[in-house]
């Protein structure tokens, strides 16, 4: 029964606080804004950051889509949708163009986003420099003074060990030619979708209590070297269901003999693509 909770679970003061942080984040694209993360009815590591963002933004007339690894019907996506159905009673959809807010874990939908839409990303580790420089006061200074040499060192090490940049997801990108951010564990295939996007992209880390943002039509460049430019993943196969050659494919093992299927990770897009072919 929804009357036990405030609309969308959080109290209005908390929502205001989070919205203020969101505004700060939008004002400084790519900069990690600390926020007073609230206790949510699920543990850290399950999307509490993203949920707090969505909860603060939802209005009665919003339409919410939630995906996890590109799929609308995994356990996490379904649970989060149920949570907001229960606490906000807002409309839920699987259709990307119809949604006003899309919360995601680990993928950006294949259907291009429009102006007015908001993407909310669930982020485990907001700090791209974390593994090179574990001291937080030091990384804060590195961001403040734009000292990103160490970030490029990480890519250099990849190339020296593997002859190419092997980072495949959570690929670091520079936002608005200033801050370097971690775009959450989306595959690098999705990074170009952030560049000059008409939508707002908000990133929430619940355990680390950070919010950062990419406002609409912002330059986002994935880091690379002149002689080792940023490259997208490619597949020899096309989607076994809809035949797409341009989407991100998941590899599914279908039996013990090792047979495998390649299918679109974005289930909604795949479904539409199938019916398009049929018509």
């Amino acid at each position, binding site marked *: 029964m929804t009357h036990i909770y405030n609309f969308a679970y959080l109290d209005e003061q908390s929502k205001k606080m989070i919205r203020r942080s969101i505004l700060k984040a939008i004002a400084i694209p790519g900069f990690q804004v600390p926020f007073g993360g609230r206790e949510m009815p699920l543990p850290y590591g399950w999307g509490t950051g993203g949920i707090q963002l969505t909860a603060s933004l939802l209005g009665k007339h919003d339409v919410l889509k939630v995906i996890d690894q590109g799929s609308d019907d995994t356990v996490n996506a379904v649970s989060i949708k149920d949570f907001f159905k229960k606490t906000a009673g807002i409309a839920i959809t699987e259709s990307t163009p119809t949604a006003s807010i899309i919360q995601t874990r680990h993928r950006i939908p294949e259907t291009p986003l429009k102006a007015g839409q908001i993407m909310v990303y669930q982020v485990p580790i907001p700090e791209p420099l974390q593994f*090179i420089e574990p001291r937080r006061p030091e990384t804060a*200074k590195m961001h*403040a*003074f734009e*000292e*990103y*040499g*160490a970030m*490029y*060192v990480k890519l*250099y*090490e990849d*190339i*020296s*060990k593997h002859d190419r940049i092997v980072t495949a997801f959570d690929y670091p990108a520079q936002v608005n030619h200033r801050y370097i951010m971690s775009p959450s564990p989306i595959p690098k295939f999705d990074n170009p979708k952030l560049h000059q996007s008409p939508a707002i992209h908000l990133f929430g880390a619940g355990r680390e209590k950070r919010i950062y943002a990419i406002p609409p039509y912002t330059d986002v460049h994935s880091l*690379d*070297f*002149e*002689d*080792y430019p940023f490259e997208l993943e490619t597949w020899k196969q096309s989607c076994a269901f809809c035949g797409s050659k341009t989407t991100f494919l998941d590899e599914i093992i279908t039996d013990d003999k090792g047979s495998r299927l390649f299918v679109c990770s974005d289930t909604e897009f795949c479904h539409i693509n199938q019916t398009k072919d049929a018509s």
Partner: protein
Amino acid sequence: MTGMPKQNTLPLLRVKNLSKFYGKTMGCHEINFELGKGEVIGIVGESGSGKSTLLKCIAGKLDTTNGSVFFNSSFGFIDLCTTQEAMLRKIIRSQTGFVTQNSSEGLRMGISAGGNIGERLMANGMRNYGQIRKIAQQWLETVEIDTDRMDDLPSTFSGGMQQRLQIAANLVTDPKIILMDEPTSGLDVSVQARLIDVLRKLVSRLNLSMILVTHDLAVARLLSHRLYVMKEGRIIESGLSDQILDDPREPYTQLLVSSILKP
């Protein structure tokens, strides 16, 4: 000890009345000296004399209690003690070098040798992998590290190699001044000899300006043009290296000099 520095109108570094106190405990006090371009000065004294403290204050790694460190940077003759942190970090990153006693503080031990040398280049905006690698290779040759070891971790290097790698990683941006804190401590004598020789060649080839802190007077003699002797936080005597070592005036200096073991 070779190389003849020339007089410029402004020194490269002017330390004026520098003091560092830890509460009531004195680290160093009323330090005054100047360094010209192409000069190597040695700061000698025993442990606890305050020489490392002094060096770290000059390097911007410790806040000073009092005094100034004027540096003839590309942005002008500025006091590093009052410079804003953003500017200070920029200057330190590209125009000064600091080689620590303990290599694991001065290097990223989890990053390959080439990566360590390349970091400053990448921090200064170099974005061509091939070029970074080439420069790193040249520097490894200069400091006499086998270029085959370029992708190895510094933790697999000997102490002497780690020190030479630190030197390369600091010199790669062509800094105006390099500060060395006990670079030969803990190294075997033969390893020391090689390091000193590499330094000697670099000083003369690159017309390097250097401040070398050491408790080893023999090392100081080989590399320095001038020496400052520190005791209990103060400079008690200074002069040309051979003056200090052959004609020591102060009692403490005489004690230090007479303690050098001669073969």
